[in-house]
């Protein structure tokens, strides 16, 4: 019988130890499926044995030992033998703690184990793997989400996700992708690749739509958890702290950014008392320590922008000149029309509408923004604020057919009406 205490201990161990166990087993056996399978069996075994034997002092060590022995059994007997073993009732399993070597490895200096998790994350995020596969495999092997859970989070059928995972693992083996932390000369770009996967995972959860909100929101938590683990493993890397700070600062607004009807609430209109103060504090502290290293990369800059919002007690207190400056720095590192457009908005909010309009005009011919409704919507808002109602109305007209959802169309239509009838002169930007 599983008691609540045992269930709790197993759940906690699962969150803490899954990635470690899988990572170590992959290193020892070179077989990803076997590693997952045996890790799963070790947790099942814990549920069976801990109620009678008691919860071991070091659950992670116990689980790794059991999983390791399962792997050895599988390898020794082959698949058929293992099936027989299953029927025979697993009596060959070693008592907990029998594997002294594994215990020693796991107990004190956990260096080798931490390295295994790093090996695992760098391998999952290898740039030769399909991007969707990188995200899925990281969630499966490192975070321990089931195939069904990942499929649900990405709104695809479970069979599709299973295929994606299989294909990704198959490529690692067949193409000879090494299971390792990349050497120093590759580390910066490969680290950027890992951070991109984490941030993609986070955004996938952050942009969750209502019905599936809960499940997808867990992606944010997984991404943050993995970010924390990565920060522990690479404590000197400022961009790792940057991405963790960025995720925490965005996450801190989660309760304020969705209204009762599931509508997104703009930053300006959010009830700031509902922001998570602890996450803001943690994010700000991480960001400050990262910036002290004076190697501000794109994630630190984005986190710094989020920090400007986090520090403002009210929307009116926002330090827009600072944000505009940060966007200019970000644009230098990450030249993108969307960054420039955001910069234009910040410049306008800081008070210089003419400069903002000039930036928007520069973007007019950019084919990458040709179908991006926010270009025309931003231009329209700037023109409206300048008092140029007719030009603003024309820009709202152009934005309207490009708006991706009903909510945005409603907003644009109401603005269009105001500008066509000549009201709304003194409004601020949305």
């Amino acid at each position, binding site marked *: 019988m599983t008691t609540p205490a045992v269930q709790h201990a197993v759940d906690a161990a699962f969150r803490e130890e899954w990635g470690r166990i899988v990572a170590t087993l992959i290193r020892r056996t070179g077989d990803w499926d076997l590693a997952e399978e045996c890790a799963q069996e070790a947790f099942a075994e814990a549920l069976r044995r801990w109620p009678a034997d008691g919860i071991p002092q070091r659950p992670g060590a116990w689980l790794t030992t059991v999983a390791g022995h399962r792997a050895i059994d599988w390898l020794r007997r082959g698949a058929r033998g293992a099936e027989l073993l299953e029927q025979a009732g697993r009596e060959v399993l070693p008592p907990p703690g029998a594997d002294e070597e594994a215990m020693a490895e796991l107990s004190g200096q956990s260096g080798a184990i931490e390295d295994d998790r790093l090996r695992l994350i760098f391998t999952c995020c290898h740039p*030769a793997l399909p991007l969707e596969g990188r995200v899925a495999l990281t969630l499966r092997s490192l975070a321990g989400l089931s195939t069904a859970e990942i499929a649900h989070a990405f709104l695809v059928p479970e069979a599709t996700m299973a295929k994606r995972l299989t294909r990704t693992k198959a490529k690692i083996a067949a*193409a000879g992708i090494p299971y390792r932390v990349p050497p120093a000369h*590759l580390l910066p770009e490969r680290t950027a690749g890992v951070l991109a996967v984490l941030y993609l995972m986070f955004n996938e959860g952050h942009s969750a739509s209502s019905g599936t909100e809960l499940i997808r929101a867990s992606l944010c938590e997984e991404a943050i958890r993995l970010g924390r683990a990565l920060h522990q493993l690479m404590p000197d890397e400022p961009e790792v702290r940057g991405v963790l700070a960025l995720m925490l600062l965005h996450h801190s607004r989660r309760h304020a950014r969705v209204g009762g009807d599931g509508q997104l609430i703009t930053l300006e209109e959010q009830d700031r008392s509902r922001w998570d103060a602890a996450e803001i504090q943690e994010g700000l502290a991480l960001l400050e320590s990262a910036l002290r290293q004076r190697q501000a990369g794109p994630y630190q800059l984005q986190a710094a922008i989020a920090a400007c919002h986090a520090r403002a007690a009210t929307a009116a207190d926002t330090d827009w000149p600072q944000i505009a400056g940060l966007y200019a720095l970000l644009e230098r590192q990450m030249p993108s029309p969307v960054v420039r457009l955001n910069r234009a908005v910040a410049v306008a909010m800081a008070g210089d509408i003419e400069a903002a309009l000039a930036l928007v005009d520069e973007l007019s011919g950019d084919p990458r923004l040709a179908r991006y409704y926010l270009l025309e919507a931003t231009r329209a808002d700037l023109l409206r604020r300048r008092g140029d109602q007719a030009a603003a109305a024309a820009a709202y007209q152009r934005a309207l057919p490009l708006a991706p959802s009903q909510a945005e169309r409603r907003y644009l239509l109401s603005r269009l009406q105001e500008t066509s009838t000549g009201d709304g002169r003194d409004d601020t930007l949305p």
Partner: protein
Amino acid sequence: MKYVVFIGSEGLPVPEALEVMQRELPAWIEEMDGRGVRLLGRELDLPETAVTVRVRDGETLVTDGPFAETKEFVAGLDIFECADLDEAIEAAAKSPVARYHPMEIRPFAAGLRLGEAASEFAREDDSAGTPYLLTMWMGGTPAAPLDDEAVMREGEAWRRDLEARDLQVLGGALRGPDTATTIRVRDGQTLISDGPVIKTTDFIAGIDVVRCADRQQAIELAAAHPIARHHAIEVRPFYSE
């Protein structure tokens, strides 16, 4: 692990690119041959020189031009022996060719034996016959039901027969297109992506290099391969001065 590296192209390189590649290639070849990473490599003749061979109802059908009707074609290949994919990526990215052409890195499915004929081919000593690349295309809907193992067995017998006649230079089945990685180098940055250079529903399943008296003989050899009955084989000469 052994990998084939396909060099993708969309046409003749511009003179400036050609000049850079001609100037810098010898040093790259020397370095990679010296490290034992590059086993050999040759440039192919232009795609217009290719024919595609199919056998249907016992009859050999030859059409002009390469198999894939895509803008991109394979312009040449190298064979690498590397510890892992990262080493192959690094070696390919160091080549001046990578600045102008996408390079696809694909593992061989089984051990690839390289004998004396391959050494001669690598040295561009074509005195024993003109080298042709036979590209085995698969995928889509096979013309005849396909039994992989039977095709493999028949393909092996085909290869042994060619070896006995001293027509075989090298060859082997490749891992599937899902295992392909394509790299490009832009502004000193190596861009790595999943998948082959030529993106069609069909895929290159294997390559063989044969040396022949003339194109007709190369076509006959291709027609004798089981894949010609099921799908298609592209036959193209390597470039020689």
